[in-house]
């Protein structure tokens, strides 16, 4: 590996693999290294064997769980918003040809201790027990405003300046009661906490639009989400392949891979006693322990069940949001489930994930309201992960470091981080509206 590269990428998590793909397509000579013997880093999907190796070293999975390789258990469970940025990146780069997706069956929200479907159609909304009759009318006029709002057309602004007006004030204009506000903010705009209430309303209005655009994006879907067959771990593999197709070199199983510095500036990466030189190094926070700071902690439980989650209409895949107020917390709890319909477990098994941002010194206990929704649990694997942010932009030290994966239920912040890093590295803004990548790939 004694060679020179334009960029060396460390870690094969989703963010790193997308960047590696984009940079390779741009014509950069890329070397991509991982310390593990598998793809995906923090965002891998693990087989049953790998899951036991990681959480219960020395133990063998019980035979009753079925074949190890039928399992693809996400370490960072998320769903993909149908009209979100990740879909745009997937289409732009044409890696969709390596992947297959299916819709997520249902989106649910916990309300007064009950699991209710988030209405996907007018008909469902009218029948939904989530809101009273008068409240439904108020919510309807609020949503009509949101749908018709066009940033460039002041006529649709109804006199509100959403770039300044706090979201709380906009809710107040429509007379929405706190329960409805909780529902809109957390189950539709998908905010994790109530920090957004004091912020300008525009970003929340856009998030509500994203939810409804996503619901309508594909024919016959009943939630705003899709999910890849064989788990999220397929995503980094697909982008790694894109990079390789454009000349990227891949090396796994380099446990001692380390950034090499000269005068505080990254000049390459050393592994197995050899150093590969590079103009810049990209990587996840675990490869730059001195250059990141902890910002939060996330607790996640991956559970294997022998039944669908109760009260979700036997959904093969579903999301349940437990808004913070419903569970007396500051941040929401998310429940995800998938099953053999997405090829992540053998037939007759289900995966359920419960996750949230850590608020106390006993993270596992914080998951209790989510775990309580699952019914009997066959196996449970709990992970508490520190989330890191880079201290610097990379301009000075040529280290372009991704942020850790936050507790959000989807990939919007993930792609935001990727696109920002791409711009910091190349000075360019990625034009997602063009599809020139695929043209070149023919």
């Amino acid at each position, binding site marked *: 590996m004694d060679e020179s590269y334009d960029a060396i990428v460390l870690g094969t998590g989703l963010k790193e693999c997308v960047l590696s793909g984009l940079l390779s397509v741009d014509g950069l000579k890329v070397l991509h290294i991982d310390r593990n013997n598998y793809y995906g880093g923090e965002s891998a999907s693990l087989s049953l064997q790998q899951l036991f190796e990681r959480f219960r070293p020395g133990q063998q999975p019980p035979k009753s769980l079925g074949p190890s390789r039928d399992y693809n258990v996400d370490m960072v469970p998320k769903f993909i918003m149908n009209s979100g940025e990740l879909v745009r990146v997937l289409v732009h780069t044409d890696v969709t040809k390596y992947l297959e997706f*299916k819709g997520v069956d249902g989106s649910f929200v916990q309300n007064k201790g009950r699991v209710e479907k988030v209405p996907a159609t007018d008909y469902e909304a009218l029948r939904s027990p989530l809101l009273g009759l008068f409240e439904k009318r108020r*919510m309807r006029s609020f949503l009509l405003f949101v749908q018709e709002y066009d940033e460039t057309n002041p006529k649709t602004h109804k006199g509100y300046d959403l770039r300044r007006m706090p979201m709380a004030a906009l809710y107040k204009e429509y007379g929405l009661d706190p329960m409805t506000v909780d529902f809109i903010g957390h189950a539709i705009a998908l905010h994790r906490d109530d920090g957004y209430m004091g912020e300008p309303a525009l970003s929340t209005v856009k998030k509500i639009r994203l939810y409804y655009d996503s619901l309508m994006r594909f024919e016959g879907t009943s939630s705003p989400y899709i999910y890849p067959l064989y788990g999220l771990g397929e995503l980094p593999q697909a982008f790694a392949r894109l990079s390789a197709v454009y000349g990227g070199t891949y090396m796994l199983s380099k446990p001692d891979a380390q950034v090499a510095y000269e005068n505080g500036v990254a000049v390459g990466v050393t592994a197995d006693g050899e150093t590969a030189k590079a103009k810049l190094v990209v990587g996840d926070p675990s490869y730059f322990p001195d250059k990141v700071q902890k910002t939060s902690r996330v607790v996640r439980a991956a559970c294997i069940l022998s039944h669908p989650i109760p009260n979700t209409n036997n959904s093969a895949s579903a999301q349940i949001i437990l808004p913070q107020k419903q569970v007396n917390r500051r941040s929401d709890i998310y429940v995800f489930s998938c099953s053999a319909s997405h090829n992540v477990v053998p037939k007759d098994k289900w995966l359920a994930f419960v996750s949230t941002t850590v608020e106390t010194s006993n993270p596992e206990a914080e998951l209790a309201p989510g775990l309580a929704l699952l019914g009997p649990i066959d196996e449970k694997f709990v992970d508490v992960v520190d989330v890191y942010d880079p201290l610097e932009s990379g301009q000075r030290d040529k280290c372009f470091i991704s942020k850790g994966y936050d507790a959000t239920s989807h990939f919007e912040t993930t792609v935001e981080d990727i696109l920002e890093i791409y711009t910091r590295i190349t000075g360019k803004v990625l034009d997602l509206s063009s599809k020139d990548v695929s043209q070149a790939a023919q």
Partner: protein
Amino acid sequence: MADVGSIQQAKLVLLGDMGAGKSSLVLRFVKGQFFDYQESTIGAAFLTKTIPEKGVKFEIWDTAGQERYHSLAPMYYRGAAAAVVVFDITNAESFAKAKNWVKELQRQGNPNMIMALAGNKADLAAQRAVTTEDAKAYADENSLFFWETSAKTNVNVAEVFHDIAERLPRASAAPQPPVGGITLTETVPERTKKSACCS
């Protein structure tokens, strides 16, 4: 044989050492081309070719160089109906590597995968380092079918792929595409404009 008009899709993966001629074989088969100095695979690691008379459309995955440091992702093997393991008959080392790839396939691939072994560069018989008998014996032991090929002089290339097409399980037995799968496209499908909930 499949019914006329019904075309079955089959993922086919290529494996083998660098320089054995994987890309050359595919380019010969798909495009009828050969280049003496084929660059290491760049930009074209996903090709399709239909054999109408066999009712098969191959989706052919080339390694894109990821074989170099044994960093092929599980995705590569996933759902593959067939594999062609390629070695260079003038290079004994490449035959040894081919055996490793066969082992890897037996470990990672689906158990019903159709596997072919291709001893490529048959036009360079004068420099032969692997005998036909040795390769054939190995192929028989491991239930592979064996062809000696030349991408350069176009010998037995189509035969390998036709042979695979012939042996593929017919549509009913083959893995079915997922029910309810979604094709990601750029354009939002035209739908009657429906408004958000509660309208």
